[in-house]
């Protein structure tokens, strides 16, 4: 069987287009090879851009995408809670701080859209470049499978875009980890930047740090012990912004064990739980599952992708180094075990113990998110499987057709990921009344934080398609807010939260004199959303001072002396953790810029001579 050499089979070596230049002293055939490689890179880039546009096209419309946990606001404020200095568990730390800083330059709307597009494009391109020395068609398959799957759909729709930052970083970390292992210390700085971006949330930090850390620390490789030590310490230090406030909060960062069952992976297809997970679905929230997962025809197409991955699994040994294969394989196995563990005998008991006894154990209760590691292995294996099939083809045309079909297969199996997840990611615009209340609050001189009623975490606004969405007001209003973190799930279960202040506030709202108790708990303002389901405690609003009443988002002031909630992590170590995080990222950015500048200078000198 001869290797086909059509456009879809151009051999490339895994660099990004801008870095591709033919050496000046290269022989003529080498130059032709480089031109083919260059063309292959542009084909891959075009394909990845196409995938991104087809998936996220509707996001070009004005507005903010609000879907479950995905919340974006025009101008998020940088507040103490943004770095974990609050009573809440630091789930979005230091993400909130990063967004608050970046949206002053980009605006919240642009930042959200650039982030989502960057995630999809970055994931596709990274996967496409992750297999060294394979044909362009193989790269297209890897890009498609990694970008267009149930995991991406479900995590996008549920709004876990920070987890998807890590997802997009994983293939790049595989590439960079490979370079570090080959002794190229210049790959350490970009790796740290990617781990840092992934570590804006705890889950993302775990996903990225585990892959890069394991690659760097695995035995073998040409990198020295100094590189290993610096990389490992830096990767750990990048987790400090969320680890430090979690560890130092006055109340332990443990969660209620009922969350294990509520957020356990679930079968989302006719394939059952294991089949759903192996095909990268199985999120606990059935509202975030694509409709196509129930269709036998879509399941059959998905199974073909899985068969390709099985075919290519043994081929991966030829493409990846031993340490890379061991690392990606071990993490994929670990991800699957964590995801399926609650369904294993005794697994739920172990998880409940971990969640309720070990600080931070709650991170594993939505175990399906750790399938990100599996997705990387499945994508690379499916690409290798397609290449194997193409090699077995009788002629070039059949080989090209096999590769093309394999690249399009993920889209055919999950057509509802197209066009904003079939309309679920449609941008919405905030009512003008929200901006008015924000301006009033920011201009007012008054003590205390704000609480938004109805006192429940999720909303259903008519101006946001009546979809369930985490209340955006606490981030929108630009002042500190007490946010309910007890999560209603499945109709009759409420998973208690970890925030003692939020729980005491819930009790106060059910009490005899809620206005007095709000003041004691440090709440100076009450905002009332009038266009979402929910109840307002009887008599509460009559006891407050009306500041703004527009019928959409009303604002009240709590009378009397406002107390201060002091059960928060100590500021100095938390701020020190953020400084360490920032210094590492600034240092890594400077190193990346220095390397890029010196490469450019060498390239110009080479052209001049």
């Amino acid at each position, binding site marked *: 069987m001869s290797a086909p050499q059509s456009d879809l089979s151009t051999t490339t070596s895994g660099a990004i287009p801008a870095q591709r230049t033919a050496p000046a002293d290269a022989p003529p055939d080498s130059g032709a090879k480089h031109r083919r490689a260059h063309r292959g890179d542009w084909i891959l880039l075009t394909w990845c851009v196409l995938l991104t546009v087809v998936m996220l096209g509707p996001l070009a419309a004005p507005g903010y995408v609000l879907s479950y946990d995905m919340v974006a606001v025009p101008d998020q404020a940088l507040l103490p809670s943004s770095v974990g200095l609050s009573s809440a568990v630091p789930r979005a730390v230091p993400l909130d701080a990063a967004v608050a800083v970046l949206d002053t330059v980009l605006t919240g709307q642009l930042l959200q859209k650039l982030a989502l597009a960057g995630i999809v494009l970055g994931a596709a391109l990274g996967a496409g470049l992750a297999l060294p020395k394979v044909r362009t068609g193989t790269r297209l398959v890897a890009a498609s499978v990694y970008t267009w799957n149930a995991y991406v759909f479900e995590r996008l729709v549920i709004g876990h875009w920070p987890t998807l930052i890590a997802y997009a970083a994983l293939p790049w970390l595989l590439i960079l980890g490979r370079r570090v292992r080959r002794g190229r210390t210049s790959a350490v700085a970009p790796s740290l930047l990617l781990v840092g971006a992934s570590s804006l949330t705890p889950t993302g930090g775990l996903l990225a740090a585990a892959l890069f850390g394991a690659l760097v620390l695995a035995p073998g490789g040409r990198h020295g012990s100094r590189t290993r030590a610096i990389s490992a310490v830096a990767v750990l230090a990048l987790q400090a912004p969320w680890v430090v406030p979690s560890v130092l909060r006055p109340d332990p960062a443990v969660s209620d064990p009922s969350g294990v069952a509520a957020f356990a992976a679930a079968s989302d297809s006719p394939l059952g739980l294991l089949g759903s997970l192996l095909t990268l679905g199985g999120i606990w929230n059935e509202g975030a599952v694509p409709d196509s997962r129930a269709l036998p025809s879509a399941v059959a197409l998905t199974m073909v992708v899985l068969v390709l991955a099985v075919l290519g699994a043994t081929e991966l040994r030829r493409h990846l180094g031993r340490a890379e294969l061991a690392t990606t394989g071990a993490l994929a196995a670990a991800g699957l075990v964590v995801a399926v563990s609650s369904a294993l005998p005794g697994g739920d008991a172990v998880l409940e113990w971990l969640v309720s006894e070990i600080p931070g154990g709650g991170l594993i209760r939505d175990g399906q998110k750790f399938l990100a590691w599996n997705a990387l292995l499945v994508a690379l294996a499916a690409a290798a499987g397609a290449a194997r099939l193409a090699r077995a083809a*009788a002629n070039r045309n059949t080989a090209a057709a096999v590769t093309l079909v394999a690249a399009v297969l993920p889209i*055919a199996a999950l*057509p509802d990921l197209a066009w904003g997840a079939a309309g679920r990611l449609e941008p919405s615009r905030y009512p003008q009344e929200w901006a008015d209340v924000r301006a009033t609050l920011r201009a007012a001189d008054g003590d205390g934080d704000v609480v938004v009623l*109805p006192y*429940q975490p*999720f909303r259903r606004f008519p101006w946001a398609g009546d979809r369930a969405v985490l209340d955006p007001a606490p981030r929108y209003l630009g002042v500190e807010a007490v946010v309910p973190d007890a999560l209603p799930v499945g109709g009759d279960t409420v998973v208690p939260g970890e925030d003692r202040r939020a729980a005491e506030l819930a009790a106060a709202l059910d009490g005899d004199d809620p206005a007095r108790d709000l003041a004691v708990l440090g709440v100076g303002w009450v905002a009332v959303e009038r266009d979402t389901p929910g109840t307002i405690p009887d008599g509460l609003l009559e006891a407050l001072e009306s500041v703004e009443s527009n019928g959409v988002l009303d604002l009240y002031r709590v009378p009397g002396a406002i107390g201060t909630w002091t059960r928060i992590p100590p500021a100095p170590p938390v701020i020190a953790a953020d400084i360490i995080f920032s210094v590492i990222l600034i240092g890594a950015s400077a190193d990346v810029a220095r390397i890029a500048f010196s490469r450019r200078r060498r390239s110009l000198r080479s052209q001049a001579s």
Partner: protein
Amino acid sequence: MGNFGGVVAAIVGVVLAGLTVVTAVNVSQPGDADDVSHEELINYDDN
């Protein structure tokens, strides 16, 4: 052998195309996702 491989590839291609069309047609049918709950308490897993 080459002809046999080509025939198999053609059959697989037709089957995959058929599955693709069936999936695309069915997924575009309006489902129950538009049914909006008006319960006072909004669940994390509501549509």
